[in-house]
């Protein structure tokens, strides 16, 4: 099978090329964060340099990293929990009790993602202001969970659809109430899918910047706002910006690394057999 190994080699090379291409901006950011500001703007960029921690010191000195990080954790976890709590019953009902309009509702939900967020900035801002939600974690949790809700519902809907309805009917014959059905049958059966959905939601909320920048100032600002605060109009401090970005990215990168097995398993989760 000479063709076999050539194909495998080609695929391996292609895979590595794409992965490296996608990883290169992160690598560049990571390296830049250890350069001096002068070294950071040099073209071509220096591959070998004497690393310095001065950017990290400056960044940490200027802002309370821990508070931003805690906000990010609270907001991404909170939004994900809220979105899941709303989406699980919604997806359950759409997957197992579809009506003529189920498809339309799903498409409509997805279509809200095509609306640029800035289009609703003013009404949202005013609402949040009147409800006292500006610059609060709760306010950000609410808007972020609404933001990921369509995707979460869609994903859960397709995972639930993989569960044969007969299994749920069997549990109904066995005396399970709808809550029992959800807790004892549906959730355990679609756990890989639910986990993948939650992980993705956490990552999306972690990276969410628009609302964080517009609805928070100090108290509830997340790491995306922290990062953005280093992109100053007076001039580019690429090394410091890189250090801030690295600090903002590393937690979610580690999180993704740990959970990637679960994520892949969930996203490729097939029929329950």
């Amino acid at each position: 099978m000479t063709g076999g190994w050539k194909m495998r080699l080609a695929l391996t090379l292609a895979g590595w090329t794409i992965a490296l291409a996608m990883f290169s901006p992160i690598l560049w950011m990571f390296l830049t964060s250890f350069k001096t500001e002068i070294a950071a703007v040099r073209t071509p960029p220096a591959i070998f340099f004497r690393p310095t921690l001065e950017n990290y010191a400056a960044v940490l000195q200027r802002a309370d990293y821990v508070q931003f990080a805690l906000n990010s954790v609270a907001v991404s976890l909170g939004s994900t929990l809220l979105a899941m709590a709303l989406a699980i019953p919604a997806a359950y009902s759409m997957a197992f009790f579809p009506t003529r309009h189920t498809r339309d509702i799903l498409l409509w939900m997805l279509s809200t993602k095509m609306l640029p967020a800035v289009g609703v900035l003013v009404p949202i801002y005013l609402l949040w202001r009147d409800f006292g939600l500006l610059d609060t974690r709760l306010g950000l949790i609410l808007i972020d969970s609404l933001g990921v809700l369509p995707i979460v519902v869609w994903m859960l809907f397709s995972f639930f659809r993989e569960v044969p309805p007969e299994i749920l009917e069997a549990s109904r014959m066995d005396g399970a109430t709808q809550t029992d059905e959800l807790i004892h049958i549906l959730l355990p059966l679609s756990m890989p899918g639910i986990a993948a959905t939650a992980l993705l939601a956490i990552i999306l909320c972690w990276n969410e910047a628009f609302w964080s920048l517009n609805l928070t100032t100090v108290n509830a600002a997340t790491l995306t706002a922290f990062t953005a605060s280093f992109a100053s109009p007076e001039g580019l401090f690429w090394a410091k910006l890189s250090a801030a970005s690295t600090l903002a990215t590393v937690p979610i990168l580690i999180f993704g690394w740990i959970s990637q097995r679960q994520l892949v398993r969930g996203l490729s989760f097939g029929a329950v057999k």
Partner: protein
Amino acid sequence: MATVELKGVRKRFGAHEIIHGVDLRINDHEFVAFVGPSGSGKSTLLRMIAGLEEISEGEILIDGVAAQGVPPARRGLAMVFQSYALYPHMTVDENMSFSLRMAGVAKEERDRKVRAVARILEMEALLDRKPRELSGGQLQRVAIGRAMVRQPKAFLLDEPLSNLDAALQAQMRLELVRLHREVNTTMIYVTHDQVEAMTMADRIVVLNNGRVEQVGSPLELYQHPASLFVAGFIGAPKMSFLDVAVSSTAAGWVTLALANGVSVSLPAPAEEVKAGTRLKLGIRPEHVEMDGNGELQAEIDAVEHLGPRAYLHTRLSDGSRMVAQVSGDITLREGDRTALHIRADAGHLFDESGKALERRAPARPHQAV
């Protein structure tokens, strides 16, 4: 222990009616089979009894009590699904005890009941396994066991054997009959396979297009099909049908002209037909013989050897098809010609609407008419 009664039951999906008024009474301890082709409504009917499907009109009484609005679990019925529908994430033990757990039965009691059922079904060794570690036959047993643990008033079985191979099907048929004898509980069994219905059921309900065609014991259906549909559905290979015309009638007898001009006579309610009436004559394979002097010339399309007997699938001179059951040592082959003799007095007559004329002659040896 339950009677199940259906009164004018209808089912509509939107404007589309798929069950057109079914009246039926299923007695306590009875093994009843719903049989019909796919789309006949048999599964829907079962699911309405189970409570998994709403009734659009009419009512279902379980032990005399209207089931409308009673959730599936509280109807006291247990269902075995075609796909088994076991809970994949639970062990056999957990699968079987799930209903008891939902009912709040204590752990010791649950274990005792599950073990008792596992003993009957000879699957005590499987209790700690997950469904994915079981073979098709074992899955089937677990599904039945899960239904038994609840000690239901009646078992509802939806094509439970259709995923098994033929040998296992034959074995499970016998086991189900034995099981029915042992637990002596009402069983309603849905199948598209008339062999399953014939071999297991006390009574068979033949459904076609959302209507009951006929209800009766297996032999009643076989010997006295009420319609062309039942005649064609029950029995394998199928009954053969010939277009005939009544040439004359006498007291209790009609004489028919076959397509090739040959006349045959058989006992039938002569007062219901008159000369010239077009009818269909149905003949089962066992009532067709190979006979050098036979009245029908046939060309053999296929020979189905089953060992002790064989079936000749033939085409007659007018193009109609006829199946003959012959001795297994036959040496005829596809393409050969032969003459067939039909024992017309064992035949079935159907009018143009497909309704059977009363069959007066039980199967008996052929006599020259």
